[in-house]
């Protein structure tokens, strides 16, 4: 850690990890409801559990991006954060807004619009948080060195905030409502979040492989081009059956098929950089998360996305467990692993120590990743059976749910494995072994 103000990233990383644990806990509870339908039904209805599971995910990922930005911007821009104090106020405001939203959900206060359930005052709070963040980081960027990594990251974060504004527009016509809803949901995860992913991976590769910045930046530009080229019109794959004109099927088919390409480019990029660099970075766990992120994102977002992106297939599969399978592995592979990669990389520097608990962290990696992979398989099988029984043979929805119960049991098992893995990961990142504390204080790394 070269700059004192990078320390504010610690708030965000710990905050994100706390919400991560809560998200997985609620995931396991939701998975339990799938096999014991009345579990907690009086206390916490399933829709609320699901809301907390998905909202906590989004919030902690965003919190992770904020933390990543506060960590890497000073190093990229070679200057301190414009206002560390503002960054800390921003953190607490975000945390309080998130907590208020969750408490509200438990008491049934929400807008009911999937993923954008936050009541209006919370949404306004999110915008205030975003403005504080963008002001602080943009001022930092403007006064310092401008690199491709920091420019791409900041442009992406600006668009994250701008696209969120569509969450305020909620037309009464359901088709129009959904159309704008995807402006937030799709253009985040298959657009600007991918740019965040590419820029953070580029930062990690520069730092850990020793490859020249110039080379990494060229790859970054190619990944950005491919993402925007495919991802924006790829929105078409959400416009197949919501009442939008039929030509969207043609646009969605062609462009969303190509959305696999940028994810594949990221796999090639990461492995090629590590292979070319040929250096052993001491933080092996961070390297494992970075490489794992590119691979699992390719499978989760790329392969599992392509599986049901063609309209002729999606006609049968949309809204089944196939979607759930894709959603879980895509979020885990692309964005959860990305955050864990930068956390694992940054924490030893932020705490002024040699990389710690690497074995534990890597056990966490393998257990969680295996758990998520198994969950994805079970949900995929459940989805295929469901599609056939429900959409082809025309069985009733609830009768079909009985038929796929076995898969839900296996999914719960996978979820418990994921929970165990997450406990290991969080423990390995947060708890520094006592013995190594004083002995291994390190000096500031030089760029």
């Amino acid at each position: 850690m070269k700059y004192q103000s990078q320390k504010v990233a610690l708030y965000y990383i710990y905050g994100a990890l706390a919400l991560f644990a809560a998200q997985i806990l609620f995931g396991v509870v939701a998975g339990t409801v799938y096999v014991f339908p009345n579990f907690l039904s009086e206390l916490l209805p399933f829709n609320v559990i699901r809301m907390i599971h998905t909202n906590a995910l989004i919030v902690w990922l965003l919190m992770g991006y904020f933390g990543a930005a506060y960590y890497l911007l000073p190093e990229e821009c070679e200057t301190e954060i414009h206002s560390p104090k503002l960054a800390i106020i921003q953190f607490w405001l975000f945390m309080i807004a998130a907590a208020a939203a969750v408490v509200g959900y438990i008491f049934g206060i929400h807008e009911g619009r999937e993923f954008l359930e936050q009541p209006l005052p919370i949404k306004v709070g999110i915008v205030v948080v975003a403005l504080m963040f963008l002001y602080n980081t943009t001022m930092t960027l403007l006064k310092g060195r401008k690199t491709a990594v920091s420019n791409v990251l900041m442009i992406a974060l600006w668009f994250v905030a701008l696209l969120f504004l569509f969450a305020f527009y909620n037309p009464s016509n359901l088709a129009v409502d959904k159309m704008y809803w995807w402006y937030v949901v799709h253009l985040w995860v298959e657009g600007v979040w991918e740019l965040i992913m590419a820029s953070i991976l580029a930062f990690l590769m520069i730092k850990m492989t020793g490859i020249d910045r110039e080379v990494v930046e060229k790859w970054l530009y190619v990944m950005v081009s491919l993402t925007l080229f495919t991802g924006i019109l790829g929105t078409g794959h959400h416009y197949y059956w919501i009442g939008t004109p039929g030509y969207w099927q043609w646009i969605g088919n062609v462009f969303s098929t190509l959305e696999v390409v940028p994810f594949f480019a990221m796999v090639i990029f990461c492995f090629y950089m590590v292979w070319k660099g040929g250096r052993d970075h001491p933080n092996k766990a961070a390297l494992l998360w970075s490489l794992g992120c590119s691979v699992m994102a390719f499978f989760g977002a790329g392969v599992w996305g392509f599986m049901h992106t063609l309209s002729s297939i999606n006609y049968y599969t949309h809204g089944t467990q196939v979607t759930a399978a894709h959603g879980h592995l895509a979020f885990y592979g692309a964005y959860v692993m990305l955050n864990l990669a930068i956390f694992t990389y940054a924490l030893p520097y932020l705490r002024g120590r040699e990389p710690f608990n690497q074995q534990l962290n890597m056990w966490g990696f393998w257990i969680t990743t295996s758990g998520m992979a198994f969950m994805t398989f079970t949900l995929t099988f459940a989805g295929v059976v469901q599609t056939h029984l429900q959409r082809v043979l025309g069985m009733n929805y609830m009768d079909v749910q009985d038929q796929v119960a076995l898969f839900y049991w296996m999914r719960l098992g996978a979820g418990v494995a994921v929970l165990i893995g997450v406990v290991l990961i969080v423990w390995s990142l947060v708890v520094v072994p006592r013995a190594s504390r004083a002995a291994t204080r390190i000096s500031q790394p030089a760029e």
Partner: protein
Amino acid sequence: MMQGDIQKQPILSLGDTETPDDEASWGGLEHLPGHPIMWVLILSELVVFGAFLLVFSAVRIGDPAGFAQDQLQLDRLAGGINTLVLLTSGLFAVLATKAINEDNRSGCRLWLLATSIFGVIFLIIKLMEYTAKFDAGIGLESTTFFTLYFLITGFHALHVVLGLGILGVVAIWPSRINVETAAAFWHMVDMVWVLVFPVIYLVR
């Protein structure tokens, strides 16, 4: 530097003889004219237009009679004229590149202007075609043939518009690499039309 952030150190060569300079290059894109990132865009465009034309041809196999009937309503003369217009503009783009290679900035600007004027003529003819279709009651959702016709030619026309923007920007700063980059994009637009025209208008 204890903790291994390794930068600006010699890169280990794992049995191969590449120098860091080679690795810093754009690989296969390095020696193409214009900016390499433009070629990433051009290749992406070719994949997309290629996919659309394949889809068009594949759907036609399923409904040859319907496609033939709809195709008769297309204005082949306008399409033919537009082909000549766009090819001519491509020639002007070449002449602009040639001028800038001879350090003739004003000549280059004139040729860029000529390229743009022919691009505008293309768009006017295209617009007249579209208007005639709409007047005849044919729209984006009339038949699969016309959905694909409007999508493919519409996407292409949008690229002509984008190309005009690029030509305009380059005319303000006519460096060699800028002009070559714009010309590369313009030739792509040109070439895509040369593929679109026969597949949609002519093939029986």
